[in-house]
């Protein structure tokens, strides 16, 4: 997918999660679609404890996907063990889609695609031939 290059903007810049990060396509280093951003993992947020003034703000530590679609529609959240993580450190660029600096098949999140590819599609004659 050809993600359009944004003009060089201010650094640092401000974005809103629902407008610019959530539900966006994630592309790997070869520009192959990997997943959709279902949710974001945040660091250093303590729940049910008063936050002392001067506490540093949380940062995004990972992109999340998994059963989050259903929970974002109906409420609740999946247990942490069922969420697929992509480290924020692997994010190379934020534009109309998010690009990673790593290849998709190194990531856990692509296991369904790899499974279908190896066990079903790859077994049909012609599954590996280049259509161009």
């Amino acid at each position, binding site marked *: 997918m050809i993600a359009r290059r944004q003009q060089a903007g201010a650094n640092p810049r401000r974005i809103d999660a*629902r407008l610019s990060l959530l539900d*966006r396509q994630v592309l790997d280093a070869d520009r192959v679609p990997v997943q959709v951003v279902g949710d974001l993992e945040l660091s250093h947020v303590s729940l049910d404890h008063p936050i002392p003034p001067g506490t540093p703000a949380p940062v995004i530590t990972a992109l999340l996907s998994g059963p989050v679609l259903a929970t974002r529609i109906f409420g609740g959240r999946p247990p942490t063990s069922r969420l697929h993580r992509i480290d924020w450190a692997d994010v190379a660029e934020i534009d109309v889609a998010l690009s990673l600096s790593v290849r*998709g098949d190194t990531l856990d999140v692509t296991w369904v*695609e790899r499974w279908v590819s190896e066990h079903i*599609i790859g077994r049909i004659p*012609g599954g*590996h031939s*280049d*259509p161009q």
Partner: protein
Amino acid sequence: MNKLLGLALGVLTAIGGFLDIGDLVTNSVVGSRFGLTLGWVVIVGVVGICLFAQMSGRVAAVSGRATFEIIRERLGPRAGVANLAASFLINLMTLTAEVGGVALALQLASSIEPWLWMPVAAFAVWLVVWRVKFSIMENVTGLLGLTLIVFAVALFLLHPDWMQLATQAFQPSVAPAGAVPEAGTTYWYYAIALFGAAMTPYEVFFFSSGAVEEKWSIKDLGESRLNVLVGFPLGGILSLAIAAGAAVVLLPKQIAVTSLSQVVLPVAEAGGKLAIAFVLVGIVAATFGAALETTLSSGYTLAQFFGWSWGKFRKPAQAARFHIAMIICLLIGLGVLATGVDPVAVTEFSVVFSAIALPLTYLPILLVANDPQYMGKYVNGRVTNAFGMVYLVIILVASLAAIPLMIITGAGA
């Protein structure tokens, strides 16, 4: 010279690819009952699909994003899933109608029962999706579909009363001479059906995904604009020719359109066996082409919404879920047809449901076409937006009126 040939190919493919089983059946039904008094709907529909295809093509070329990616990003999960469910199901219904249409056309050509052709048709559709290069697929089905021009030729050969046809077209409130009187509600029900047949949503999924498949960029926009603005209206003229032929041959004898035999009757009367041969080639090509497009659209909608790797430009093993989804959709369509349901009936419902689903795809495209984050400086101009808003209203009205009219008129009985 090459450039000129390329442009001509694009336009011809657009004309030949414009018609599908929905257009063939609906225009025929409408012509046989209402003459050309619903002709204005075809014109409204053609302008609408030109607008819609242009916007979605521009969005895809400039932003590199195809329709369902945009729908998910702009509407969020809740509205996006609802949109996906409705669009996907209606697309599946249209797919079923098109595969059925291929089988019906092959039956006319061979006198072999359609139930035997259906698995063959479904398999052939899959095989082409699996192996054939995107542009070859488009060009071959589009060019072969051009033989449907025989509908226009047939109309001339029938020596119709042009004045009468013109009267019907320009005085839509007056029932055509010799027609069985129809209720006003039935007239408007068929107006919506005809609108849905012209503005098929799958066309837009396919067009915008195709733009990404063929790696369009900004410099391809001019050529696509030409294809759309010349090709689609000429395709619309063919729609009118089908309706006019039905008005001339079927309406006076009150012949009801229940199968493809009645759809091709005007051609048979005008040109005999040779004309029939041409029209059958055209119908097989047009419905097969539409079956390919709806199958690919079902893959595109799911893959783009869920963020899977997709595209015919990739090896199937690198777009595995995309391909398995399409295989499953074809099997579902085949399963529905195997229950013995009449493909013509499925077609008649699919066009109305297409009209109902239209706002779901149209609104996100209209919004994104105005968003500088996606479009840069290629956002909609004021004229496009004016047309865009007018059509948004038309589409919403048609969508909301469809079900009540369907109930009141008993689905146009």
